[in-house]
């Protein structure tokens, strides 16, 4: 394989470069930390220009996944990227794509966020991969992220199934030197000749599902042979089975303390049962290290509990949150200290066992930027809401979620994309007045429009504020799907024109804006207030561009 020039890449960028070099014809994605940089890298690469790799943002993860499936149907290779909770949105398309199978290679990159650095949960996407019964690849480092992204397209075409590439925040947002290999040409247009495979009527679906079940043995065989699954030799009774990036933390401890511990690294699924059995048979004490839920640990232990295995389930590692060198150090050296009678002085190197910072250090949570339009909006809402005994403002996902924190403390809920409107609707149906919600422009087009339609059809009494800053700001300012069209969208959905109001959230407009909000809260029916002012960062970057 011809080696190309070395690059310093984020894990996310390594995935993107691997997909480009695998000859993708398109990427479909909705921005979401920690997956956003994959698509951004492709958008900024020369490939996005020539030869064409289609790369604009999708309205949500479901539309992205379906478009990717369509590109695969047409015979071309396609990448689809999202954060872990985005896969919940795309789950219908995802699960059924395992039943249809693929024509051109289709790879789903899903970026999980253990420790919830920027998310509302830390669900483990490997559950979804196993649920759909498709191959999963889980890179441990940036070079492997590159190689797996390339390989996963070959694998997808070989087994005619979508392949999941699962990364986590740490790998996605960490840079290292990556050596790419020579790029492959894109596939030509080659639509499927087997339409029945794509028509999931029950008769076809039953046949396809049988086929998916029959493929499982082949997928296991491939994992047994995979070079991504490997053993690092060592002596001693204790061993480690580490999955994906967890391998790095175990190896960090093993090498820095000069330990002699055998390690089995698993980065390709379904679980290679023979390899695991051969390895596990040799040891009486095995630490299972996996980033995310203890999915494999639970399987290896079995229902009746094989006590040789330690990990998150028995408290050797914590049940939640991201792994770290310190946690692996404690897990490995802690048990070494108990079982080690050779008198070697092996001690954790932790300086401060509390791992807490200095007592002077105050928490520094994120906050709305100076000059942000959401600030003036929340100011107006808070003042109006003092007129009412019950002060509930349903919120949604974006920068404006920070309106839940002081000094505003405006927002009372944040659950999933679009839930502000539908929860406000349900609360309004229950009799809550006023039923007010705040949703961002990009979140509105992602999952808010259908909820608004429900409210219109049901004549629910609620007020929807679309805080339109013209961008997907939280993830760094990506294009927003409905910019400039919110009035028309709301009108088209059936909101009465007289109750689609527009305001500009600025200090000087405070009284006027409060009056509009008050009027619409008093209206018994569906009203929409479009609060329109550009994100301060987008505005600044435009000014900079004009200056140059």
């Amino acid at each position, binding site marked *: 394989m011809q080696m190309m020039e070395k690059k310093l890449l984020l894990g996310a960028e390594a995935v993107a470069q691997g997909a480009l070099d695998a000859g993708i014809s398109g990427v479909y994605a909705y921005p979401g930390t920690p997956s956003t940089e994959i698509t951004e890298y492709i958008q900024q690469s020369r490939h996005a220009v020539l030869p064409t790799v289609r790369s604009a943002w999708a309205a949500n993860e479901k539309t992205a996944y379906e478009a990717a499936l369509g590109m695969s149907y047409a015979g071309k290779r396609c990448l689809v990227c999202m954060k872990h909770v985005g896969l919940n949105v795309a789950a219908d398309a995802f699960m059924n794509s395992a039943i249809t199978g693929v024509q051109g290679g289709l790879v789903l990159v899903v970026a999980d966020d253990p420790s919830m650095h920027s998310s509302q949960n830390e669900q483990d996407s490997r559950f979804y991969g196993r649920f759909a019964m498709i191959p999963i690849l889980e890179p441990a480092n940036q070079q492997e992220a590159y190689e797996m992204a390339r390989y996963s397209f070959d694998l997808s075409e070989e087994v005619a199934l979508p392949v999941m590439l699962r990364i986590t925040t740490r790998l996605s*947002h960490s840079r290292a030197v990556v050596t790419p290999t020579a790029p492959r040409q894109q596939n030509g247009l080659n639509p499927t000749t087997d339409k029945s495979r794509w028509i999931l009527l029950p008769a076809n679906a039953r046949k396809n599902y049988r086929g998916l079940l029959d493929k499982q043995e082949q997928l296991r065989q491939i994992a047994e042979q995979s070079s991504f699954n490997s053993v690092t030799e060592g002596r001693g009774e204790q061993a480690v089975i580490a999955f994906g*990036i967890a391998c790095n*933390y175990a190896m960090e401890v093993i090498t820095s303390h000069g330990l002699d511990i055998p390690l089995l690294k698993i980065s390709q699924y379904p679980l290679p049962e023979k390899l695991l059995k051969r390895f596990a048979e040799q040891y009486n004490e095995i630490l299972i290290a996996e980033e995310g839920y203890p999915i494999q640990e639970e399987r290896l232990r079995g229902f009746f509990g094989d006590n040789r295995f330690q990990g998150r389930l028995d408290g050797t590692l914590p049940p939640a949150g991201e792994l770290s060198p310190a946690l692996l150090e404690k897990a490995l050296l802690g048990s070494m200290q108990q079982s080690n009678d050779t008198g070697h002085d092996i001690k954790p190197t932790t300086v401060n066992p509390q791992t807490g910072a200095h007592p*002077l*250090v*105050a928490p520094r949570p994120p906050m709305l930027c100076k000059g942000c339009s959401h600030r003036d909006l929340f100011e107006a809402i808070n003042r109006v809401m003092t007129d009412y005994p019950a002060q509930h403002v349903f919120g949604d996902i974006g920068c404006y979620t920070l309106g839940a924190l002081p000094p505003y403390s405006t927002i009372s809920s944040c659950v999933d994309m679009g839930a502000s409107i539908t929860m406000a609707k349900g609360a309004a149906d229950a009799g809550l007045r006023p039923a007010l919600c705040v949703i961002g422009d990009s979140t509105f087009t992602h999952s808010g429009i259908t909820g608004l339609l429900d409210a219109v059809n049901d004549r629910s009494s609620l007020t929807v504020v679309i805080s339109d800053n013209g961008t997907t700001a939280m993830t760094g300012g990506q294009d927003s799907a409905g910019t400039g069209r919110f009035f028309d969208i709301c009108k088209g959905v059936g909101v009465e024109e007289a109750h689609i109001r527009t305001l500009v959230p600025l200090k000087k407009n405070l009284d006027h804006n409060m009056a509009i909000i008050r009027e619409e809260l008093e209206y018994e029916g569906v009203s929409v207030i479009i609060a329109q002012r550009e994100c301060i960062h987008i505005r600044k970057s435009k000014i900079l561009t004009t200056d140059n």
Partner: protein
Amino acid sequence: MHKDIIIAGVGGQGILTIAAIIDLAAMQLGLQVKQAEVHGMSQRGGAVESHLRISSNVIWSDLIPLGRADLILSLEPMEALRHLPFLSPEGLIVTATEPQGDIVGYPSVEALHDAIATAAPHLLVDASTLAAAAGSSKSFNLVMLGAASPCLGIDNHELEKAITTYFDPKGENIVATNLKAFRLGAAQQRSKTTTR
């Protein structure tokens, strides 16, 4: 050669630029690099940090183990203390003195300076003044890179080459300002008066 460096600050201060320049210089020298960054919600004015590891050998973990960092390079004094558990017993702190104190419970500057002084050998840098002297308040982060430069295990010549490469697309003037800021920072002497 192996260096573990924590770069700390507040979202928007430019710690990723510092990291990118060190990365570039290290890569040019054929060293291994791993550099974990914070993206997403915390970038909205929250506490941010980068774990930067440079080595002539394989680097396994993207995160620096507790108690191993050779250097905490902080753009804000309280943020230097946040990462203290990562500092090795032989490690150094290089920090800007100007507080980003617009939060609840921010301690007094005197208390912060005392805490830093008792924690480790340290260098306090009035980076705002030096950045202004270099010609742009935006070069604040390059002053701090300069101040930390004796502790990075990379020649200043290599770092200056990386600065030039990094800022080249923004034009000659920006390159010159940042080089000047870097040199002003590099001229700061490490405090000899460690009271530990």
